[in-house]
């Protein structure tokens, strides 16, 4: 027995010691006021089958059985309880280690163990409080889901779900929260009755001031009941209504008029931009209820065709209708103000989307096309959604939705704006495809099985959500801010480019690649249709790689899969590829590739320098021609760490104080953030990006 080694919990080998086992057994006897004689010890020990490389857990399991076989039940019970106490101790110790590591991490995102997409700038006690229970949430969520899968589809499916999850074929997004994911809300119920229906105490807004203040509170409340983003596509439309009520229908024609009797002598324009300031700065504050994350807030702008389509039937509670001319002015004013304000402060939210309707390879509303190009040229960073049909809209940072119902309801407002994603479950395509190849499984057979299972899992998730709603836990649904049957269950894809690379398919616009993409995304769409019911809608989205792409790359590499980069792409092209020009990238995010991505994807055109208005205007045409429906231009902004100056350009030296101690703001997912606040792995991805073709 002298040459035997055991494996400790930390994975280290240690010579096997009979004395240690004897001691443990003796202590168990003593703990119930009994005593183990040498004979007793030998009897118990003789039943153990120790072999080289046995784990501590296994030895302890054998001791339990041995004690029971020798009929020392009381001792066995004491021994089991003793093991459990130690297990709990170790768990606390792990948390303690995590706490210390978190305190030592370079920033909040790197310190986060489970969900590095934390939109927090700095780590502190509040962000730590948010991190600590995350592992418990993951366990709870898995248990909830597995129990429901067992109920609905049997134990085998539940076990397979856990197998695929634990072996990283699939990834459950946002498992660290128990709330449903993201939503684009209709604010009509709030306009009618305030926040009481969702548990607040505010009555309906009645003027510009109560609208702005109430809006901030409402967004905080809604966000605290979601794990992801909250989009308010009507923010400016309602604001325009209150401005008109206060300063007249034609306020935008006399915006310089002084309307303030205080010593400040503020103009209409100043009153309005003060409102912008109040709302935007308030919402960018870290929030207590969200562990010091700011809420993730999205707004939308519309061209006149989208406005017509979405709000043509809309009626405010006082019977009046929205007015395009003043809303259009307010939209432009907000965008220009926000662009300017971003040179003063790092303002991450709102994430903005401009919705433009296209026809015959160009944007129909030329005024808004020119304005959109003007704002890009002025250095503003926002998304553009282009569609040749107003039946779809993207109101979140990427989430695209088919508009189910453009009608108007006197209790719920505009039907088209209410949407979202209840839950995202992502397939790791790189691993699935490589697994098929390595095991000689026919192409896409395993992938198909995984996708089918994902739909069952999502169906089970939906049942759990319905249960929560039945118990009154989801007031956002009950109050009509969002509708449970208008929210999608999202199948996310990650590792698509990497899977194609593994199959030696060139990652550019060619028939093989197009076919590969169509085949896989088409398969997802087929199951999306198959599982669709009156209350279940599925969509497919190329998820922003946030931290999932980093995790997949790491896990796949550890398990011997081919991994070409440290963070899987969120695009249809390789992020570091300098052989593709900008038009190629629009093409790869064009209709031939994104057709089955019903939930959307975003082209982030990384550029080193800003283009001119005329050039951006032409690129809007390119987007319309190629059918690239969602995109943004990403030019790193420079922030001076010494004087705080923010410049819209990508500079190596501060133009104000000439310090070389500069940081950059860029988009990693949907939103602008300091590069130094990204997690370590994301910072590396950002540094490898190709800011192209200047």
């Amino acid at each position, binding site marked *: 027995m002298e040459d035997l080694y055991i494996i400790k919990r930390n994975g280290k080998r240690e010579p096997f010691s009979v004395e240690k086992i004897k001691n443990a057994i003796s202590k168990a006897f003593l703990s119930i006021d009994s005593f183990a004689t040498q004979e007793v010890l030998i009897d118990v020990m003789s039943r153990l089958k120790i072999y080289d490389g046995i784990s501590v857990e296994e030895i302890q399991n054998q001791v339990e059985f041995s004690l029971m076989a020798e009929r020392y039940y009381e001792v066995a019970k004491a021994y089991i309880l003793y093991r459990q106490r130690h297990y709990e101790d170790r768990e606390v110790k792990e948390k303690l280690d995590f706490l210390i590591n978190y305190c030592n991490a370079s920033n909040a995102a790197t310190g986060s163990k489970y969900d590095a997409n934390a939109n927090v700038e700095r780590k502190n006690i509040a962000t730590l409080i948010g991190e600590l229970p995350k592992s418990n949430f993951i366990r709870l969520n898995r248990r909830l889901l597995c129990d429901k899968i067992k109920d609905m589809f049997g134990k085998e499916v539940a076990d397979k779900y856990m197998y695929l999850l634990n072996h990283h074929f699939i990834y459950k997004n946002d498992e660290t929260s128990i709330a449903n994911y993201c939503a684009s809300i209709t604010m009509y119920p709030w306009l009618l009755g305030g926040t009481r229906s969702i548990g607040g105490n505010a009555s309906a807004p009645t003027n510009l001031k109560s609208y702005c203040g109430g809006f901030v509170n409402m967004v905080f409340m809604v966000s605290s009941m979601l794990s992801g983003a909250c989009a308010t596509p009507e923010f400016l439309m309602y604001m325009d209504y209150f401005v008109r009520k206060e300063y007249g229908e034609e306020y935008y024609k006399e915006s310089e008029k002084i309307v303030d009797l205080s010593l400040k002598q503020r103009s209409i324009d100043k009153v309005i931009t003060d409102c912008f300031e109040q709302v935007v700065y308030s919402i960018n504050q870290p929030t207590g209820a969200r562990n010091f994350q700011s809420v993730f807030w999205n707004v939308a702008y519309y061209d006149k065709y989208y406005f017509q389509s979405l709000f043509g039937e809309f009626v405010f509670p006082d019977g009046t209708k929205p007015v395009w001319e003043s809303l259009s002015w307010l939209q432009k004013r907000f965008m220009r103000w926000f662009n300017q304000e971003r040179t003063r402060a790092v303002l991450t939210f709102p994430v903005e989307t401009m919705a433009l309707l296209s026809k015959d390879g160009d944007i129909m509303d030329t005024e808004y096309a020119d304005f959109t190009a003007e704002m890009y040229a002025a250095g503003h960073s926002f998304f553009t959604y282009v569609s040749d049909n107003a039946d779809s809209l993207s109101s979140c940072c990427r989430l695209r939705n088919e508009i189910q119902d453009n009608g108007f309801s006197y209790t719920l407002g505009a039907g088209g704006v209410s949407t979202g994603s209840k839950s995202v479950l992502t397939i790791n395509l790189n691993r699935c495809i490589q697994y098929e190849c390595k095991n000689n499984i026919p192409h896409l057979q395993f992938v198909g099985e995984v996708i089918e299972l994902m739909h069952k899992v999502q169906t089970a998730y939906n049942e759990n959500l319905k249960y929560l709603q039945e118990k009154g836990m989801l007031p956002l649904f009950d109050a009509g801010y969002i509708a449970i049957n208008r929210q999608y269950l999202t199948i996310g894809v990650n590792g698509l480019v990497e899977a194609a690379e593994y199959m030696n398919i060139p990652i550019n616009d060619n028939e093989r690649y197009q076919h590969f993409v169509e085949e896989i995304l088409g398969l997802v769409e087929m199951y999306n249709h198959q599982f669709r019911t009156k209350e279940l809608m599925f969509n497919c989205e190329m998820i922003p790689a946030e931290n999932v792409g980093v995790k997949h790359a790491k896990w796949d590499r550890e398990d011997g899969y081919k991994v070409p980069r440290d963070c899987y792409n969120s695009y249809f092209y390789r992020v570091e590829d300098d052989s593709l020009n900008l*038009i190629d990238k*629009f093409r790869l995010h064009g209709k031939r590739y994104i057709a089955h991505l019903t939930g959307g994807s975003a082209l982030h055109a990384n550029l080193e320098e800003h283009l001119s208005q*005329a050039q951006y205007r*032409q690129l809007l045409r390119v987007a319309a*021609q190629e059918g690239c429906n969602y995109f943004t231009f990403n030019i790193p902004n420079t922030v001076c760490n010494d004087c705080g100056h923010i410049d819209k350009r990508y500079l190596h030296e501060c133009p104000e104080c000439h310090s070389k101690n500069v940081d950059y703001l860029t988009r990693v997912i949907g939103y602008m953030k300091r590069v130094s606040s990204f997690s370590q792995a994301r910072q590396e991805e950002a540094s490898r990006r190709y800011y192209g073709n200047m």
Partner: protein
Amino acid sequence: MKYYNFDIVFQEIPDEVTLAVNITNCPNHCTGCHSPHLHGDIGFPLDESEIDELLAKYGKQITCFCFMGGDATPQEVAKLAAYVRTKAALKVAWYSGKPQLPDTFTSFDYVKTGPYRPECGGLKSRSTNQRLYRNSGGKPIDITARFWK
């Protein structure tokens, strides 16, 4: 006339989305040249059928077609420029390294002149010897200042 590669560029011609073809066999041999690989007689033949292919792929998305180089055979550049104009409603530009405007100026919408001199810098430098002209009804307008924002 041969070309080495092409790219979609934004900085070379203001306000245009430009497909730029890099022509090889450059005779100028400027000191401090950024693309010495273009000195050799290498690459693919640039002719009408090659241009047809490029236009089929990018003609609708671009606003300008630019010949980068080609000073060894200026007449050929002008001929292909005329061909581009017959095939598509595009602006045509030429990045020449010669100090003066070519006789064929009217075949182009933009012409850049001047060899690269390291002491003067490229178009973005205020002391540059290079010039970018826009063809305004046959008259060359110097728009070099557009690079000095």
